């Protein structure tokens, strides 16, 4: 029986706990605090919570100003707005200045669902990854979300963290599994191929690996929670040890995890590779599960991709 938990609920709760122990933590939101769960922080610490209204660009630069005065700033909204709408502000006010601002967004990817294409961030990892100084993280589950948020408070500098709208399958049994920003985790050993996944696709990769095992294929699974800085060493090691790679992400196949892994492999250790993710297209309204199936983001899609990559070995 798979357990589900919400990454954004966890974010909201952890933020309150961090707020209790560190008076320097300030939280900003852009009229989505009920959805992003920063409202919990706002309720307990009204003085240190600023709802900037529907003004994401203003929010990002304001966050930089607060950070310039020593604050640890969390700025939250939906992924589409926190990345795309305010990209220039993130680039100049936050990243160029290496400000201590943590952009934690929810509603990443196509599982945002019924709101449709305008609200489904399928390009955010690509455009955030392109910005110098920026750390980009997609936690694989709620437990990892807590690790990410607590680690970010200790590590100075800008970061972009993408969470989900839905409750997602829990992969990690406890918080003690050696989480470290920038270090991928081998969740399951395997010798024939490596599935490198991020976010909710880590779960689907585990299911795919089980399916492949039934056919005698030993598929390694890597949880690549940090897209940037990418764990290049682990990517190269997996390519060399298993000879083929599939990437899986709830994001466009352009520029995200697949893009980042391809860049490393092509320059260091080229092996057959297939990217599972949104094709170069917009999504649409629908139930998240239906959308994942329609746009090829399920474990059977990963199985198919793995077989295709292995054929080219």
């Amino acid at each position, binding site marked *: 029986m798979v357990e589900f938990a919400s990454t954004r609920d966890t974010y909201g709760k952890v933020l309150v706990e961090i707020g209790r122990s560190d008076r320097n933590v*300030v939280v900003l939101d852009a009229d989505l605090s009920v959805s992003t769960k920063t409202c919990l922080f706002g309720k307990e610490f009204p*003085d*240190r919570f*600023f709802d*900037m*209204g529907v*003004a994401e*660009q*203003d*929010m*990002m*630069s*304001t*966050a*930089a*100003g*607060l*950070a*310039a*005065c*020593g*604050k640890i700033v969390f700025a939250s909204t939906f992924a589409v707005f926190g990345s795309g709408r305010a990209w*220039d*502000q993130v*680039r*100049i*006010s936050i990243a*160029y*200045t*290496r400000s201590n601002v943590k952009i934690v967004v929810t509603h990443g990817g196509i599982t945002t669902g019924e709101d449709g294409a305008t609200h489904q961030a399928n390009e955010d990892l690509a455009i955030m990854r392109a910005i110098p100084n920026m750390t980009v993280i997609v936690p694989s589950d709620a437990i990892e979300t807590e690790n990410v948020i607590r680690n970010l408070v200790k590590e100075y500098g800008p970061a972009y963290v993408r969470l989900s709208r839905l409750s997602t399958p829990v992969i990690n049994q406890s918080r003690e599994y050696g989480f470290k920003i920038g270090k991928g985790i081998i969740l399951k050993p395997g010798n024939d191929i490596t599935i490198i996944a991020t976010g909710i696709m880590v779960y689907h990769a585990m299911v795919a690996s089980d399916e492949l095992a039934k056919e005698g294929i030993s598929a390694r699974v890597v949880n690549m929670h940090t897209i940037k800085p990418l764990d290049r060493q682990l990517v190269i090691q997996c390519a060399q040890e298993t000879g083929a790679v599939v990437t899986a992400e709830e994001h466009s196949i352009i520029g995200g995890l697949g893009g980042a892994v391809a860049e490393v492999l092509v320059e260091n250790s080229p092996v057959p590779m297939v990217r599972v993710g949104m094709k170069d297209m917009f999504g649409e309204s629908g139930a998240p599960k239906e959308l994942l199936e329609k746009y090829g983001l399920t474990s059977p899609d990963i199985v198919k991709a793995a077989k295709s990559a292995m054929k080219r070995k």
Partner: protein
Amino acid sequence: MQMEKKIKELEEKAKVVRRHIVEMIGRCGSGHPGGSLSAADILTVLYFHKMRHNPGLPKWEERDRFVLSKGHAAPVLYAVLAEAGYFPKSYLKTLRQIGSSLQGHVDMLSLPGIEMSTGSLGQGFSAANGMALAARLDKKNYRVYVMVGDGESQEGQIWEAAMTAGHYKLDNLTVIVDHNKYQIDGKVEEIKGIQPIADKWRAFRFNVIDGMNGHDIKAIIKALDEAERHKGKPTVIVAETVKGKGVSFMENRPKDFHGKAPTKEEVLKALEELI
């Protein structure tokens, strides 16, 4: 009498600042002289009279902050910071050169005294709001000054930020609009008019000081003092300025000298006027 002497000193200082601006832009062959010269008197008053700051301790927590939201006017800020002693004046010779701390648009990580990196218009104002909010959180008395351009006022973010400052009643914030009437493509009112400026700011819940002569030291001091005294609302000072102020041929051709450096001959001519 004391005040008259002070004003005279500030006028002289502004002239030195203008000389730096013309020389450094002339030397490197690119930059924005017009909008730097229009802001010279205001920045001179801020850094040599109004603001509490310590060039020896650029990160002093109690300092007043100045954010140049119109980041392309970098030379005027470099000139006052060098004159104030934040870094050696010899640095001014390196403007826009590779490896220099004096970037084309100000970079807070490369030079002491720069409070926020700007250049993409609209962002500095929001950042200044963040600093004013931080002062309130930390119960500190410092003030935050931010200069925005009139062309910059066409940016949507300026009005997002104005709404924030008004909503949060940031009376520790003073906004100064450098109303020099020109932008790159021509006259602001012809490109995309921003009038009525004062009414706009009033509608955004600001205390408005309108029509200040941005080249009259006494008027600048008076307006900044008045802004500081006003409680319960942020204050905006609409400074009436002249693009290229202090250099006759730039004043006469403001559009040409928005983003164009003077030639060697023009630099010499300008310096003659700035004695």
